[in-house]
C-alpha cells in the first residue's frame, strides 16, 4: 500500500491542545485513493477531535494537513468541503425540518449552482438545474436505500435511516474523501451488514476514499483495509486488520491494564 504515489490525505505531526490539555499529539496519517481506512480507539482517545481537525472545525495547534497535495492551513469548514472532504457526525446532525430528499438536495449547494435571481424569477436555468439536482439526489437515496422515505421529514426517520441519510447528504457534496463518525452506532447486526455493503458500494461506485471511526469491530474488521489505532490522542498502532487484532498494545488499551 505505502508504495503508492501520493496519498490523497496526508497528516503530519498533527496536534491540538485545549487549554493545557493535549487532545491529539504527534499524529501522522496517510490515506490513499479508494481506500477504506478505520480509525479506532477507546472512548476519549481523540478520534472525533481528529475529524474536527481534518474538517477545520478546530484549528490545529501543531502540524499540518495536506489534502490532494495541498496544504489546508487557513482553510475554513466550508473550504474543506469544497476541496473534497465530506463528513457525517457522531451525534446525528440532519436538517430535521426538511424532507429526506431536500436534505440531499441541499448538499448539492456548491456543485450544481444557480443564482437566487434565477430562482426568484424562475428563469430557465432554475428548472434545468433543479431537475439535475433532483435526479442525482434520488439516485443517492436509492443507493442508501432511502427511496421510500424521500418525502418524509428527516427528523421523523428511524435512527438507522438517519445515519444513512447523513451519508447520502455527505456524498451529495461529491467528495474525494468521506469521513464517517460511528456510522453503525445504534444499528442492529442486520442493519450494520447492510451498511457495510452500502459503504463498499459507495466507495466502488464513486471511487472515493473513506476514513471511518467505529466501535463496532464487526464493521471495522469487515470493511477496513487498514486501521489506525488512537489512544490518549497518540497513534498506538497501524496496520491491516489482522495485525491490529494481534497487537498486544491494542488489546491492552481496549481491555485496560
Amino acid at each position: 500500500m505505502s508504495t503508492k504515489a501520493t496519498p490523497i490525505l496526508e497528516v503530519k505531526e498533527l496536534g491540538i491542545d485545549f487549554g493545557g490539555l493535549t487532545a491529539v499529539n504527534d499524529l501522522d496519517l496517510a490515506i490513499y485513493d479508494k481506500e477504506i481506512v478505520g480509525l479506532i480507539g477507546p472512548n476519549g482517545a481523540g478520534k472525533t477531535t481528529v475529524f474536527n481537525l481534518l474538517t477545520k472545525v478546530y484549528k490545529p495547534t501543531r502540524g499540518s494537513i495536506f489534502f490532494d497535495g495541498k496544504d489546508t492551513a487557513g482553510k475554513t469548514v466550508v473550504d474543506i468541503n469544497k476541496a473534497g472532504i465530506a463528513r457525517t457526525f457522531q451525534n446525528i446532525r440532519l436538517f430535521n425540518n426538511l424532507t429526506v430528499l431536500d436534505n440531499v438536495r441541499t448538499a448539492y449547494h456548491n456543485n450544481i449552482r444557480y443564482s437566487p435571481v434565477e430562482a426568484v424569477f424562475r428563469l430557465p436555468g432554475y428548472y434545468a438545474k433543479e431537475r439535475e439536482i433532483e435526479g442525482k439526489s434520488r439516485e443517492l437515496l436509492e443507493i442508501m436505500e432511502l427511496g421510500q422515505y424521500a418525502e418524509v421529514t428527516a427528523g421523523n426517520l428511524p435512527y438507522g435511516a438517519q445515519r444513512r441519510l447523513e451519508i447520502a447528504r455527505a456524498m451529495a457534496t461529491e467528495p474525494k474523501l468521506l469521513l464517517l463518525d460511528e456510522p453503525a452506532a445504534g444499528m442492529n447486526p442486520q442493519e450494520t451488514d447492510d451498511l457495510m455493503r452500502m459503504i463498499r458500494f459507495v466507495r466502488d461506485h464513486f471511487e472515493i476514499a473513506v476514513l471511518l471511526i467505529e466501535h463496532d469491530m464487526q464493521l471495522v474488521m469487515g470493511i477496513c483495509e487498514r486501521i489506525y489505532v488512537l489512544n490518549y490522542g497518540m497513534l498506538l498502532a497501524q496496520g491491516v486488520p489482522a495485525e491490529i487484532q494481534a497487537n498486544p498494545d491494542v488489546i491492552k488499551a481496549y481491555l485496560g491494564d
Partner: protein
Amino acid sequence: MENKKGILGYLLNNRHRSRTISYTMVAAAYILLEILLKTGNLSNLFTGLLVPATCYLVAAIGLNLNVGVSGELNLGQAGFMAVGAFSGVCVSGVLAGTVPPVLRLILAIIIGMLLTAFVGFLIGIPVLKLQGDYLAIVTLAFGQIVMNLIMNLYVAFDSTGIKFSFVESKFTLGEGGKYLINGPMGATGTERIANFTAGTILVIFALVVVYNLIYSRSGRAIMAARDNRIAAESIGINIAKTKMMAFVISAALAGAAGALYGLNYSTMVASKFDYNTSILILVYVVLGGLGNFNGTLIATVILFLLPQLLRGLQDYRMLIYAVVLILIMLITNNEFLRTKAASLRKKKA
C-alpha cells in the same frame, strides 16, 4: 414528474399547495373588497385600513422569511419600514409634479426597497455575527437607532436641489421649497398616492419572491443553516452569506411596505416605527406560524382588524386583544390539546 396529475394536481401537490392557497386567498380578498368598494358597501373606517393592512402583510411576509425560514429572531422590522417609508416619501416629494402618481409610487417603492436592502445589508454585517437572543436584542437596538436617527433628520427640497441636515435644521429654503422630513415632526404634506391595488400587487410580489426563494437552492441553504448550522457548514454552505440573504430580502420587503405605508398618509412621524411596531409584526408572524406564509396572511389580517372590530368595546379592546394573544399561546401550546390534534391528524391520514 410533477405534471402527471394535470394542472390541478400540480397546483395541489405538497410543494405547491401552500402557495396556490396563498395566491387564491389574496386574489379572492382583493376581488371581494374591490366589489364592496365599488358598490359603496365598505365603511370609511375599513376603506382606510386596506392599504395599511397590505403594508403589514408585506412586512410580516418578509419577517417570516427571517424569523421562520432563517430562524433568526428580528425585533427591528419596523426600523426597516421606517427607512422605506421616509425614503419613499422623499422620492415621491422630489418627483411630485414631474412624474405621474402611478409611476411615482412604483419608483418610490422600488427606491425605498433598494435603499432599505442596502441598510439591511450594513446592519446585517454586525448583527449576523451574533446568535440567538443576543441577535434579537441587537436588532431591537438597531431598530431604535434607525428610528432615532430619522427623528433627527431634516430633508428639504427646493429649486436648488435636495438638502440634508442632521439634529438641527440649518437651511433656508428658496422659492417653492418645502420640507420632506422635518425632524421629530416627520414627513408632512405628503401627497397620498398609495392605493389598495398597489398594496395587493405588492403582497403578491412578496409572496412570489418568498415562495420562489424557499423552493430553491438558496432557500434550502437558508433552512439548512437554521436547522443545523454545523451540518450546513459541513456541506459547504456559507452561513453568513445565507443568513445575510434572508435578512436583506426581509428588510427589502419591509422597506417596500414602508414606502407604501408612508405614501398612504399625509403626515407621518418616525416614532410610529418604534419597537412596539416591530413586536406587533412579530406577533403576526408567530401566531400565523413560523415559516407558514398562509398563516402569516390570515393572522395578520385577523390581528390587524381585531382591535378595529372590537371598537364597540372601546377601552376594553386592547385588553381583550392582550387576553386573546395570551390565550392563543396557551391553547396552541397545551400539551393535551396538542396530542389530541396530532392523533386526529393521524387518523385522517
